[in-house]
Structure formats: structure tokens, C-alpha cells
């Protein structure tokens, strides 16, 4: 059994989760401070990938990243490299699809934060940076960790947008999800079943980790 799809899935998920972790926190923090109308619009736009079919997200991404589209064409002219059909192209797809999970859980955590703690910190002379990293983040860590792990779990399982943006090339862009589809399509049921088991095992382990984390937080 060639383990490349697993390695590829994991590295895509890790990179996407890291990007989404910081982007989601930043978006949640700054968007909460915007005027109401702008906040409402951005909120819808950033949450949309959660409810759209991944194929629609993939289509929209190709509209920007495709070799003849503006970003893809510019990148080709500058670096002579395509933005699509690379293993790392999947990072674009997965990042967009899992972003809302991180954004919404982080926002919920920030909204339940008691703002008087930040104000008390200011009157005590603590810097805004200190207050963000040493007071706001630790107080919200449970929601933020839960969001990051959920985003990671979803990132491992992303199929639709990934298959459109990165395609399926054995040994290059294959992920666990696209491998399963490919094996099923060519009728290799036994191998497809093994990959299904691998996928279930990993996802279950991640969710188990979430539960353990939550229990320790409460205890």
C-alpha cells in the first residue's frame, strides 16, 4: 500500500489548519469591531463556504486561480508555475472550506469574553498586546482550540473543492479522500475499504482528542 495519499492529506490539513488558525482569530477579533452593516456583510461572506457545496467553492477558486484567470495567469508569468493541479493547490481549497469553522468558533469565544477584564487590564497599565495574548487568548482558549481541532478534522476529509483545484494525480496530488473515490471508480474495492478505515481511524482519533481536551478543561 502506497502511503503517499495519507502523507499528502496530513500535510495539506496541517498547513491549512495553521493558516486558518491565525486568519480565523484575526478575522473574528477585527470583524467584531466593525460597524454593524459591514460586519453583517463580511460575516455572511466568510461563513458562506460552510454551507456552499464544496464543488461551488472549487469552481469559484478555479475562476481566480485557473491558468487563464487573473491570479493564475499572473503567477504563470512571474514564476512559470501553475497554481492548480499541484499538491499544494489543495491548500487553497481546504483553507477556504474550513475557514468558517475556525472563524465562527473563535468569534463565539471572543463574544463570550468579559470585556471588563480587558478594561481592568488597561487601567492597571498592561499593554494592549499583553492583554490580547495573556488575557483575552487564554480566557478564550477553549473555544479557540476546539475551533482549530474541528478545522483540522474537517481539513483531512475535504474532497469536493480539492478534487477540482488539485485534481487526482497518483503520487502527486492524491489525498485519502480522492484516493478512495478513484479506487472505487476503478473497482478496487478491497484497497478502497482499507483507505476508508484509515480515514475513519484518523478522524475518530481527532474527535476523541477534542473530547479529552474538553473534559480536562472542565476538570
Amino acid at each position, binding site marked *: 500500500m502506497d502511503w503517499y495519499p495519507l502523507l499528502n492529506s496530513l500535510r495539506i490539513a496541517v498547513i491549512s489548519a495553521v493558516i486558518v488558525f491565525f486568519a480565523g482569530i484575526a478575522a473574528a477579533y477585527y470583524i467584531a469591531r466593525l460597524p454593524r452593516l459591514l460586519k453583517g456583510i463580511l460575516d455572511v461572506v466568510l461563513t458562506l463556504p460552510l454551507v456552499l457545496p464544496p464543488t461551488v467553492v472549487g469552481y469559484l477558486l478555479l475562476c481566480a486561480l485557473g491558468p487563464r484567470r487573473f491570479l493564475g495567469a499572473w503567477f504563470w508569468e512571474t514564476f512559470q508555475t501553475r497554481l492548480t493541479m499541484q499538491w499544494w493547490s489543495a491548500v487553497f481549497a481546504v483553507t477556504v472550506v474550513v475557514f468558517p469553522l475556525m472563524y465562527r468558533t473563535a468569534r463565539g469565544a471572543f463574544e463570550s469574553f*468579559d470585556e*471588563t477584564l480587558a*478594561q481592568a*487590564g*488597561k*487601567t*492597571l*497599565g498592561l499593554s494592549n498586546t499583553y492583554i490580547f495574548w495573556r*488575557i483575552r487568548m487564554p480566557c478564550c482558549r477553549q473555544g479557540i482550540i476546539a475551533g482549530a481541532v474541528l478545522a483540522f478534522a474537517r481539513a483531512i476529509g475535504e474532497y469536493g473543492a480539492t478534487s477540482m483545484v488539485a485534481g487526482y494525480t497518483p503520487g502527486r496530488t492524491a489525498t485519502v479522500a480522492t484516493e478512495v473515490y478513484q479506487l472505487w471508480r476503478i473497482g478496487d474495492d478491497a484497497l478502497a475499504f482499507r483507505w476508508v478505515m484509515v480515514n475513519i481511524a484518523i478522524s475518530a482519533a481527532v474527535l476523541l482528542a477534542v473530547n479529552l481536551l474538553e473534559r480536562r478543561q472542565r476538570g
Partner: protein
Amino acid sequence: MLLVDIKKKLGAFHLDVSFETGGEVLALLGPSGCGKSMTLRCIAGVERPDSGRIVLNGRVLFDSGKGIDLPPQQRRVGYLFQNYALFPHMTVVQNIAAGACRLSARERQAAVESSIRTFRLEGLERLRPRQLSGGQQQRVALARILAGSPELLLLDEPFSALDSYLRWQLELELLDTLESFPGDVVYVSHDRDEVCHLCASVCVLAEGRSEPKESVRQLMEAPRTLSAALISGCRNYSRISRLDEHTVRCEDWGVTLHTAAPVPPEAAAVGVRAHHIVPGEAAENTFVCAVERVIPGPFTAVVTLAVPGSREGALPLRMELEREKWEALGRPEKLAVHVAPEQVMPLLGGEACRI
């Protein structure tokens, strides 16, 4: 020396507060929603007034005319929040050390150690706020604020989060703290008892507007306005027509009262405290009432009295006296009562007052 003169508009609510303190404990007394906390937040710098000035010991903290608005970090104003705002993920020691963040590491350690002793927190150093009692939390919050040696202390209803039986001891502790604090203190409360116990002067706030500063004793003996009388615990009040400098017709009660204090021409009402209504007849200010209800207090009896000629819908008079004295009267249905002219308080209406 603290000088505050600020205005702020919040929807339909207008905050318009001005007062000055000089090394004393000043109370901002008013009902909830009158803008007391908002005033403190403006002084601390976590909220921005629309216009005005805030000057602390000659340092301008805020001046809309000159475009000065110091961030809270530079104001050196200690703010005790209603819920104490202790950092829940930090231990007692870490919380206090956060308050001493302006000091060098070595000074900070010394400051934390000494405030642990001052506030009797020995043995609690490694606990987190939620493991502490309400009183201990208050001590940690005070220790944390004072570790930064602020020039001004703002206390926002420090006892509202505590059970009433704990308050007495904590009031004594807070008295010690306030006495040893060198700077000004602004104490926000809606409880006249706390204000009497802890403060020297008081500024009444009603619907966002501040009244001139006065001594606490003045407020209790001769409140200037109806809203001041109400917040100082006066339960009986009536609109008046002024007959002469010492005589008023009480429109709500339908009686004429003599006052010892001169009634200013613009006076709109009089107030009489419940314990100043006394059973029995006297030369002046005597009237016969029907006894409506008797409500037992812990050691007193509260008796509501209907005055015969009173206006439709007027509140009954409230008389408060020791339970033994009431019981000695033998459950009368009608009762003659009187009010000494010294105890009839002429009151200005003020725009904030609706009778």
C-alpha cells in the same frame, strides 16, 4: 485633586456630570441607570466623553478642547469593577503582579509580597479567583489595584456582588484601606447606608445629571432636591404650594405644614422621613390618619397611613417606629400623628424629578 466636567450622549440618555474632589472620599450616589458607572468609565479612560475636561492632580487626562485623551494605561487611575474583573486564569499572586506591571521584576516581587500581607491573603497565593470567596476576591482586586500605586481610586459598587451578612466586616476593611490611601477616592453606590459609613461628601446623580457636591450629613439632614431626598431614603414626599416662608400646603396629602427651614420660592415639594412621623398630638403639624397596613420590619414596625384629605392616587404616608412603641399604641384604626417643623424638608424639583 480631581476635577471632572464631562458630557456624553448615549442614545436618548445624556450624561452631564461635574464635580471636584480634594483628598476626600466622594460618593456618587444615584439610582441604577443614572450614569454613575459611565462616569467612572470616562474617568478611567475606558469610555470617551463627547466633551469636557478631566484633570487629576494637575495632570490633564482628558480635554476635548485641546484634543487630549490619555489612554487608560497612562492615567494611573485604579478602578475596582463591580465584579472585581480578576483574571480567571491567573493565580492570586499573578493577578497582583499584573497590577504591579509598571515596576521592575524585583520591585514587583516585593510589592506583591507586601500586599499579600496587607490584605491578609497568606495561604491563598496559588489559588485562582473562582476558588476564593467574594470577600477574598474583593481583597485581591484591591491589592492588585493598589500594587500599581494609582493616584485615584474608583470604586464601583464594591459590595453589590456580596451577601449582606458579609458586608459589615468588609466595610470595616475597606474603611482601613481608604484611610491609608493617599489619593482621592470616588465611590459609586445606590446605597445610602454604605455612603454614610464610608464617604465624607456626596454628589447626587439623577438621570445623568450631577447635583452640587455636599457633605453626607447635609444630604441626610437637608437634601436640596427631590431626587436627592429619594436616594437618601426619604419615603414621604408631596408637591406643595408655598403659602409663606415657613408654611406650605401639601397638595398630595391635603394638609398644611409649618417648616423650620425657610421655603425657597422655587421649592416644588417637601419630604418627611418615615421615622420623623411620630404618633401623638403637638402644637403644630398634627393630623389624624387612618391606619392602612402594618408591615413588620426586623425590629421596627412600618405603618402606612392614609391622610383623609389626600389626593386621589397619592401614596400613603410611611411611618416607621420601634416595634414596642407601636405595640404600646394598641392597634388603633385612627391615629393622630405630628411632624416637627425641623423635620419638614423643603425640596427643589429639578428637571430630573417627576412627581
